[in-house]
């Protein structure tokens, strides 16, 4: 009996290893291939100062290992299009995360305490933004933005702002659902207790409601940031002349990707992982037990 249970335990451990391997090996491969040399055949006709200066069209097959080099990091960081695109994407994602979370929080607080009949149309709108294919929203947004610029004085042209507006529509809905789920689950007994102890509506919101919602708010902000950062479809329609990181990557595919892309992705991964670890350590130190599940969820969704 005991032996059987032991064997089952080993089997589960093995299964877990396989699943995690499946999930994380590609990322590891990506990081390893950031250090890959161009193939010897391609290098035969190339005489530059650095092997990484080779034009993408000539690079040949980079999915086989040809040897170690670290020059792709330098090449990626000095590429004239990559870094500005990443900066643009980070800017849009950061602003989208803040605006979406604030809007989501407001909507969650308002809708959770609303009568079901009044709430229904708002709920329908929220779910509509989630179920309508993004390509439809993208086309609709493009038409809307172009028309809006024709008729509304001062409406921004296609660019960062229009990308942002389009993404906020989707992200605010997601944020609202995340925050509302926690808000409804919290119940109102703690708020009643706070009222009972002499704290008014503002004080109660600041001292009880907001801290209790924090894990959900952080989750919503992280998710919004991620969705916005790696979104391709909507920016592809509404970007005008602005290039985001996903747009640059997709167009690079046409001319041939170099390991410089891997190098930049590896840098971003390293930054993200460091941030997650620092956050986790800080959370543990402040012993915020409640809602750590939400934070963990958000962490998993990060690229």
């Amino acid at each position: 009996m005991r032996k059987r249970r032991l064997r089952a335990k080993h089997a589960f451990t093995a299964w877990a290893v396989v699943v995690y391997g499946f999930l994380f090996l590609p990322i590891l491969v990506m990081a390893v291939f950031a250090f890959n040399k161009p193939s010897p055949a391609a290098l035969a006709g190339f005489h530059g100062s650095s092997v990484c200066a080779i034009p993408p069209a000539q690079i040949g097959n980079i999915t086989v290992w040809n040897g170690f080099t670290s020059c792709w990091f330098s090449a990626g960081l000095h590429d004239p299009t990559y870094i500005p695109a990443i900066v643009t994407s980070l800017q849009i994602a950061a602003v989208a995360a803040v605006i979406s979370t604030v809007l989501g929080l407001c909507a969650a607080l308002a809708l959770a305490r609303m009568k079901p009949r009044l709430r229904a149309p708002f709920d329908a709108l929220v779910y509509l933004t989630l179920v309508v294919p993004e390509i439809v929203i993208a086309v609709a947004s493009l038409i809307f933005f172009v028309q809006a610029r024709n008729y509304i004085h001062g409406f921004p042209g296609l660019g960062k702002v229009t990308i942002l507006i389009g993404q906020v529509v989707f992200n605010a809905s997601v944020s609202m659902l995340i925050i509302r789920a926690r808000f409804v689950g919290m119940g109102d007994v703690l708020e009643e207790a706070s009222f009972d102890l002499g704290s008014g509506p503002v004080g109660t919101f600041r001292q009880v409601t907001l801290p209790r919602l924090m894990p959900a708010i952080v989750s919503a902000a992280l998710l919004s940031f991620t969705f916005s950062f790696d979104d391709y479809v909507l920016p592809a329609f509404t970007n005008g002349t602005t290039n985001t990181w996903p747009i640059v990557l997709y167009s690079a595919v046409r001319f041939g990707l170099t390991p410089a892309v891997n190098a930049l992705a590896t840098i971003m991964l390293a930054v993200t992982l460091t941030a997650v670890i620092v956050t986790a350590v800080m959370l543990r130190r402040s012993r915020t037990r409640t809602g750590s599940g939400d934070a963990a969820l958000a962490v998993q969704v990060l690229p």
Partner: protein
Amino acid sequence: MSGLSPVSDGAYDVELRAVTKRFGHLKAVDAVSLKVRKGEFLSLLGPSGCGKTTSLRLVAGFEQPDEGEILIGGTDAVGTPPYRRDVNTVFQQYALFPHMSVLDNVSYGLKQRKVGKSERYARAREALELVRMTGREAQKPTTLSGGQQQRIALARALVMRPRVLLLDEPLGALDLKLRKEMQIELKRIQEQVGITFIYVTHDQGEALSMSDRVAVMANGVIEQIDEPRVIYDRPLTPFVADFIGDMNFLTGEVVEAADGGFAIDAGAGIVVRGRGQAAKGTRMRVGIRPERMVAVAGPPAGTANSAGAEVVTKMYLGDQIQIVAELPGIGSIVVREQRASADPALDSIHPGDRIALSWDESSPLLLGETAPASTAGQQEEQS
């Protein structure tokens, strides 16, 4: 508003005047009037849905009455939000703030009153001492047991020194042993601090053992309010008689009424004689407590206040013996006797055997007139 405030004579901390609260079509609280004396331990006792918790929430300010007045400390409190009322609540599910330490939880109310940090921590520590929870100040409430959390919740409310402390089934989530301990503890604390307690419970044992007065509620109205002893010994309505302790009901026409005594023909040859005012010719209901009956093996004496019955079940409850017996043509009846004083022959009776029941004249309680037609329905509702 203050100019129009109804005045009270000051002897009462809380006064409800014909307060009604509706939820949709349901009257949760139906024209309830209640005066709670200063320093009193008053229990609101009743089954779930009787309006006791709603009454408490009306006093706390979480609900506003549709009709009537609520006076706290002699001034009208209707319309005053909970955070401006001089009352504090101990919630059934503790409602401690999980993101704050025990000390921050207890000093939360003082912080809202802008009491300085050192003073509010000192007072919070005092309150924790009062509920015997020192040494846990830095812990989060979720790391404590249910009983400990309830003590923290109590300290958090007591530190405010409210005029009235409202307790909403505070021991409901605790196990029996802990509940008994906390009952004694609550009573001790109440006597020590001298604050008026309004205590909501569905546990009659709790209400009867701790309270100065008990208000028994049913269907949004107070059926009876009195000292625990009177509630048990002299229930005024069939509901109270049935809800508090166990009760055997007999119904019949008053055949004799004189000198503060009565006789009722309960049918099947049973005549109930008791004390109290009853008009001859009316149909009255009487109740007899199971422990006020005596059972002996054998046939009945055939006199008043005795009856023959057939044993249905016999049960030993440790120091007591309980017999459920069938009165032919009337229904089942419960008898409970101390085994030390019970008829030894009861040990050898079995279901189907005949026994004789008797009671003395002080046992039957008059529980009001019954219209013959409505008896059946009412009986059903209570069971």
